[in-house]
């Protein structure tokens, strides 16, 4: 199954590049959301309000 | 219509009196053409074979680098804001700028192209084809470049950004422009027709994109 013949190097590099790039995208997207969520929570802790919540006050 | 013509006339007169922008574009074109043999070696056969490509690429680069100044000066002295707020539709303002760019930059570049071609030992029968292709295609080049210039107007790195945005869009012009010099039967007619089509399309479509960008720049 893993005997990929004379061009194995190219195939492995291709799959490796795919894992690296797509892994990078996944980390970027997930970390980006987490970072903004933490930022939002920090702002709310400091008492900043969104307009929608202002109307409730 | 009168206002449109007056606007073109104004840009032409400005370019004529200052002359510096046109001179710079011409100088850039000739330097770009002249520096390439220094990198490739003086083999005249090689140079005459690749001359159309070199001339087209240098032409496109000088067109991109010169289009920036067209909007920039009017923006700096505030006359662009006045124009866009005035009665003339922004589409027509953009079109008049592109026409002025074609007349003041592309036409002089086409005029010196035979000279630049001499430097590259271009074949005598290729030269008229090249000039025809330039005449057919560069109108579209001016309109595409005008839309790009309107988009990057007043940005910090605008001068650097513009080639990055616009050069990929020039691919068809370059391909058909150089394709007109191909020796295969019918290649010239086909390329010239496609270049005309590209130019017509750009003249019809690009002013709308440019006008959107101009109005955006006012906000």
């Amino acid at each position, binding site marked *: *199954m*893993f005997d*990929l*013949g*004379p*061009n*194995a190097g*190219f*195939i492995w*590099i*291709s*799959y490796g*590049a*795919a894992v690296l*790039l*797509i892994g990078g*995208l*996944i980390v*970027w*997207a997930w970390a*980006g*959301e987490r970072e*903004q*969520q933490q*930022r*939002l929570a920090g*702002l709310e802790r400091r008492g*900043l*309000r*969104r*307009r*929608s919540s*202002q109307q409730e006050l | 219509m009168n206002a449109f013509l007056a606007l073109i006339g104004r840009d032409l007169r400005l370019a004529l009196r200052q002359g510096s922008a046109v001179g710079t574009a011409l100088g850039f074109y000739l330097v770009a053409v002249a520096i390439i043999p220094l990198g490739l070696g003086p083999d005249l056969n090689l140079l005459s074979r690749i001359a159309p490509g070199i001339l087209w690429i240098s032409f496109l680069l000088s067109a991109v680098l010169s289009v920036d100044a067209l909007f920039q000066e009017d923006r700096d002295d505030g006359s662009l804001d006045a124009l866009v707020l005035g009665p003339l539709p922004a589409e027509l303002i953009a079109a008049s700028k592109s026409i002025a760019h074609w007349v003041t930059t592309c036409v002089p570049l086409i005029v010196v192209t035979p000279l630049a071609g001499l430097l590259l030992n271009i074949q005598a029968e290729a030269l008229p084809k090249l000039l025809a292709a330039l005449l057919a295609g560069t109108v579209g080049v001016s309109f595409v470049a005008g*839309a790009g210039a309107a*988009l*990057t107007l007043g*940005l*910090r*790195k605008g001068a650097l*950004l513009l080639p*990055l*945005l616009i*050069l*990929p*869009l020039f*691919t*068809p012009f370059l*391909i*058909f422009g150089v*394709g007109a010099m*191909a020796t295969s039967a019918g*290649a010239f007619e086909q390329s010239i027709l*496609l270049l005309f089509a*590209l130019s017509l399309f750009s003249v019809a*479509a690009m002013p709308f*994109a440019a006008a*959107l*960008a101009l109005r*955006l720049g006012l*906000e």
Partner: protein
Amino acid sequence: MSGLSEPQTVRAPAEDTMFGPALRGWLAFMVLAIGWSVSRYYVGVANLEANGNPGWDTWLWWVPEIMVVVGILGLFILVVSLEASNHSRIANLANPTPFMRMSGEILPRLALVTALLIAAGLAMSFRAPPDDLQGQAARIMFIHVPAAWLSMACYTLTAISSAGYLIWRHPLADVSAKAAVPIGATFTLLALLTGSLWGKPMWGAYWVWDARLTSVLILFFLYLGLIALRQAIDDPGRAGRAAAILSLLGAVNIPIIKFSVNWWNTLHQPASVIRAGGPTIHPALLIPLLVMAFAFTLLFVALHMKAMRAEILRRRCEAMIAIHVRGGGEAANV
């Protein structure tokens, strides 16, 4: 100002009193049906006269069907946008809260399905028999083709979102366009990398000026331009609209660029190029390819959703800071 705080001044009143929904639906159906039958007739007759056979094997045969699909899609977009503009009088749809709630529910499930599908696709692509012509190197195609497909699909999504933003000024469309570009650029880069890694054993060179590789390269430059333009403008609303104009400019030009590159390639046809994947692919290779393409598409949807969520949250933060700085005066409706 945040891009999510557009004033809702430019919104045409919805004309729902003009026709009843049934009449409108019937009219749309008749237009599509008449358009389809007329073009079907002409395409069929033209093919018969030209070749003596109906000619299904060419893509031209499918033009009427493509027209119908595009028409239905267009109608769908129209209906959705009308719904949105009607709805906005009651609740502001520019408010992305429903999107956040929905995507929050969908994403974990989607991620699970995507992970399973990718695992299945990878297993299948390594178990597939080697290709007769390309040998083991054909396995690179299982990544290359989905990445190339997504590089185009992602640009299409960017362009549609940009049109939505320019026409209806819907902030969520801008968020979608902004989130799609880096993902599309990465998939394009992946397609280029795997394409050249496939090219070395097949063509003997990492880079061949093949028509497809060349147009993907130009697509990559368009993505880079979009990223650079957005970075060059500080104001997010202006940046969004400038990027939208540029991506529409690119979308209009992509077919022309593709056509010109194909033309250029046939003009300078290199002698020893093995054509990649002809019209017939053996099912043993086709099925893993389809599974991978589907898995990559789901992956893209999940990534895009996640990136959109991050962007919405980022804009919320910006808006909150803006309200705070202005002392709670004119507020952003985020």
